[in-house]
């Protein structure tokens, strides 16, 4: 991994907590994303990945309570910004793309008018300037005949094209941070690969900080510089991508990796791994390891506070077990 000077931190989050009434959706997440870095948040449905992204963007639904020790984007303290201040950053300095390209574009307007509007809002561009810039970006995300596409409505475009348009829209104002919430989940496999390649290329060219949310470890392996594995609203393991795949340490991460068949490596005579049970709903008063009910190594101590253990190269995990637990046994 490239070593980057510390002042290029784009997003820093420490101890972020989000509650919906009596459910704690995010319970003390810390992340740091540098310029030019792809940080993957990975975990199963309902583990709080998307809520984390929405909390950073300030887009949580009514009734959600957000708290954080640090929530910093460049030199902006996001926890102190009001709605107007957030609106100024969103779409300009920080942008987001969503899972469902079929519904992320407003069906009532052409692609062109949706794109130029963003530029008019943040840059005060004239219609003509904005159209030129919009066409330029459509070309950049690999859309042929951008001029034609600008005049079309979302329903005239395929899912893959729409996701490209969403990406182009997100990049209109040259943001520093792009949050992509499962950007390829709704697309078929070949289109998925194209979109991922595109994101990777754009990220390198523009030096974006990319927060990529996914449940697909294949995507993680190919895209991420750094990975945070989430479980029940917490980061249970965080590491540079090579370290995570080489030495997964948290029992949950191990379990996840065991669930993936590897052609040529998985043994045909053994059943594929699985993790029994489902992600629990966590009340705000919950203490101890949230994974203990599904963990084969759980003992009574797991119901008490669990330490965050640091290993070499910024690899860390949240468990009572020591680093060499599987070798000791």
């Amino acid at each position, binding site marked *: 991994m490239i070593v980057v000077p510390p002042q290029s931190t784009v997003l820093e989050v420490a101890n972020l907590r989000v509650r919906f009434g009596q459910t704690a959706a995010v319970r003390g997440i810390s992340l740091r994303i540098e310029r030019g870095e792809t940080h993957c948040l990975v975990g199963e449905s309902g583990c709080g990945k998307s809520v984390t992204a929405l909390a950073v963007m300030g887009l949580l639904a009514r009734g959600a309570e957000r708290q954080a020790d640090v929530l910093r984007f460049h030199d902006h303290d996001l926890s102190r910004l009001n709605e107007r201040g957030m609106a100024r950053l969103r779409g300009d300095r920080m942008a*987001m793309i969503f899972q469902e390209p079929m519904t992320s574009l407003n069906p009532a307007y052409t692609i062109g008018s949706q794109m130029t509007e963003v530029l008019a809002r943040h840059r005060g561009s004239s219609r003509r300037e904005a159209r030129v810039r919009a066409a330029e970006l459509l070309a950049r995300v690999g859309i042929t005949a951008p001029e034609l596409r600008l005049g079309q409505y979302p329903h005239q475009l395929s899912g893959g094209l729409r996701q490209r348009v969403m990406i182009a829209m997100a990049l209109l104002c040259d943001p520093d941070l792009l949050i992509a919430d499962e950007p390829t989940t709704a697309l078929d496999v070949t289109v998925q690969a194209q979109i991922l390649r595109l994101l990777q290329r754009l990220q390198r060219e523009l030096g974006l900080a990319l927060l990529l949310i996914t449940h697909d470890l294949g995507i993680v392996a190919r895209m991420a510089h750094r990975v945070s594995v989430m479980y029940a609203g917490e980061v249970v393991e965080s590491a540079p991508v090579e370290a995570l795949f080489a030495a997964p340490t948290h029992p949950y991460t191990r379990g996840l990796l065991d669930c993936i068949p590897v052609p040529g490596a998985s043994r045909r005579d053994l059943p594929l791994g699985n993790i029994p049970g489902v992600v629990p709903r966590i009340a705000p008063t919950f203490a101890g390891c949230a994974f203990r009910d599904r963990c084969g190594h759980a003992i009574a101590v797991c119901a008490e506070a669990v330490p965050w253990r640091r290993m070499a190269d910024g690899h860390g995990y949240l468990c009572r077990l020591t680093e060499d637990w599987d070798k000791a046994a």
Partner: protein
Amino acid sequence: MKLRARHIATVLGAVIVGGTLVVAIIAPLLAPHDPFAQDLMRRLVPPEWLGGTALNPFGTDQLGRDYLSRLIYGARISMLIGILTVVTSGTIGVTLGVLGGYFGGRVDDAVMFAITARLSIPLILVALTVVALTGSSLTVVVLTLGLLLWDRFAVVARTTTMQVRNLDYIAAARAAGASRLHILLREVLPNIVSHLLVVATLEMALAILLEAALSFLGLGVPPPLPSWGLMIAEGKDYMFFSPWVIMVPGIALFVLVLGINLLGDGLRELLGAGRSQ
């Protein structure tokens, strides 16, 4: 075949409503006589097809005024009332409905309270009170109907906004830095407008019928204005010997309201099909 029949009905509705609108606009060019001019020598002349003359094709009323001319000018009143009422009540209802549906919580509680309160107000009674206090005029009718008929707009705007509110493109617009006002006006409204158009046609038909009813009861448009409802009211004493005095405006009302409803049904089909694609 079925689709074709529906298509014909929609076109028929559009022709009736459009035709009435044109007649209303160019009434002075079409009307053969002054609708207010009385001719006491030619009272209750039957229409041409019942033995009258070409001078008064639809006959005359009890004061000798040309019935065709009054019918044509009456279209103005009906269309004016229909359109102004829909604009007024639509503005009120859609504003309330969209606010309640989008913001939810306390705002929505307030909107729901307003809707329930409005539904418990009997329209005719209010009209009676208002006319008793202010006297009857076209403005009073438009205001009374406009300020009371917004409930359906509010209900439909509220539920459709709630559906649209949670869609991804609203979140995407917020993620792109759009303000609340922008989201309400430019993201939500265009996507519920098809539903509102259908409500608008229903409300317009209702407003026209209510105006006729109010005028019939003497609470609406004051004489000598040629409102279709008023024409029926004025003619009811003569209907046994001169049935056309209520038949002619009655049929006009029926056809116009039917036309609006056909158009509304057609719009619903058309816009509904457009959405599911």
